[in-house]
């Protein structure tokens, strides 16, 4: 099971308080993890990526195992530590003021 940590606003929307554990089909990639997140929590459709183009929203970043995967291809395999659930997949709202 992959562990996904959502930012506070999205935890509120999804009505979860901590990391969410998700079964990911096939190779763990950014795309397959986000597919699993949206499948389990349809309320998050459109909050992480555009609903039609699947393009990442500009102020959303994806970190895992000490690396930034935001700019990698959607099908780039995530590290084994993430795929096995030892390290979480973090969804981060970009830092901004105001």
């Amino acid at each position, binding site marked *: 099971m992959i562990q996904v940590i959502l930012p506070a606003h*999205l935890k509120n929307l999804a009505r979860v308080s901590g990391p969410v554990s998700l079964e990911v089909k096939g190779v763990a990639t950014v795309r397959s993890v986000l597919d699993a997140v949206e499948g389990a929590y349809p309320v998050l459709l*459109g909050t992480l990526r555009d609903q*039609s183009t699947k393009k990442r929203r500009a102020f959303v970043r994806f970190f895992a195992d000490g690396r930034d995967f935001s700019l990698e291809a959607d099908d780039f395999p995530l590290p084994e530590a993430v795929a096995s659930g030892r390290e979480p997949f973090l969804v981060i709202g970009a830092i901004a003021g105001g």
Partner: protein
Amino acid sequence: MSQVRVLVGTKKGAFILTSDGTRSRWKVDGPHFGGWEIYHVKGSPADPSRLYASQSTSWFGQMIQRSDDGGKSWAPVGNTFTYDGIAGTHQWYDGTPHPWEFKRVWHLEPSRTDPDTVYAGAEDAALFKTSDGGKSWSELSGLRKHGSGPRWQPGAGGMCLHTILLDPVDEKRIFIAISAAGCFRSDDGGGSWKPINRGLRSEFMPDPTAEVGHCVHRIALHPSRPQVLFMQKHWDVMRSDDAGDSWREVSGNLPSDFGFPIDVHAHEPETVYVVPILSDSQHFPPDGRLRVYRTRTGGGEWEALTKGLPQRNCFVNVLRDAMAVDSLDSCGVYFGTTGGQVYCSADSGDTWKAIVRDLPPVYSVEVQTLP
């Protein structure tokens, strides 16, 4: 005794202010959706317990929230706003073609008769409609595909469809306003549209009297007389007596005819309110004095309403959707400021009191009058 429920959208959440008909003591509830921008909250005239809220951030996009119990609890509904067909282009700030891109919903206008039917005004400018309580939204694309669409251009605040007026007599007639395209009217329920901007003059345009391109900030009507429209334009306060087919200026003796909101008294169709702002480059009241101006003659002659409002060192703005009236016998008038105050007058504007003073910047104010 009657009650009022004031629905406030702010930069950092929604607030619900309630009082009995005296409008003297208030309960403040919120923030709902804390940290999110709430452009607009509005209740259904057909079922006052049904509320809709537009919730967005630049980070996580657009959500629409719905309450079936007057704002005690909320649940997200559909947030898919897809332009019909090939979106095409409008003009960018530099005059080049720019693809139509959905950014957010500025305004939600529930049907007068069906709580499940709501119209949504979007940025980039388009009109959407739901008939299933917000689960799904479809574009009324006859507006955007009106021949002038490629010539529309954003104002500094974005190219937003910010005003939707549903004619209370002719259910097929809808008025909308876009910054900076102007006003449009549909007489067939939103299928086809025509621009209604004759008489407007905007000096920032190459052709000041062009058919489209005017930065209309807000329009308003009285339900008993929907062919009479009032407009606060970028500059100029305007009036139409023929459902927008022609307009004439009624700025009269206002200290500035720049401003954002405009609204009409609940029981007096010729009594109109505006909040003059110094200029397009200085968005605060003239002389640091927050004054609502009221006409009782449908424009032209305006009086300053100042009792209870700050008359020195006040440099807030009042945004276009941040004024509303209730329908109690003594009409209540409400407005919110970018400084976080929400003011109420229980006597048609003669005197004012702040309901709250320290909210986040107020984007919108709506009022429900409840039994």
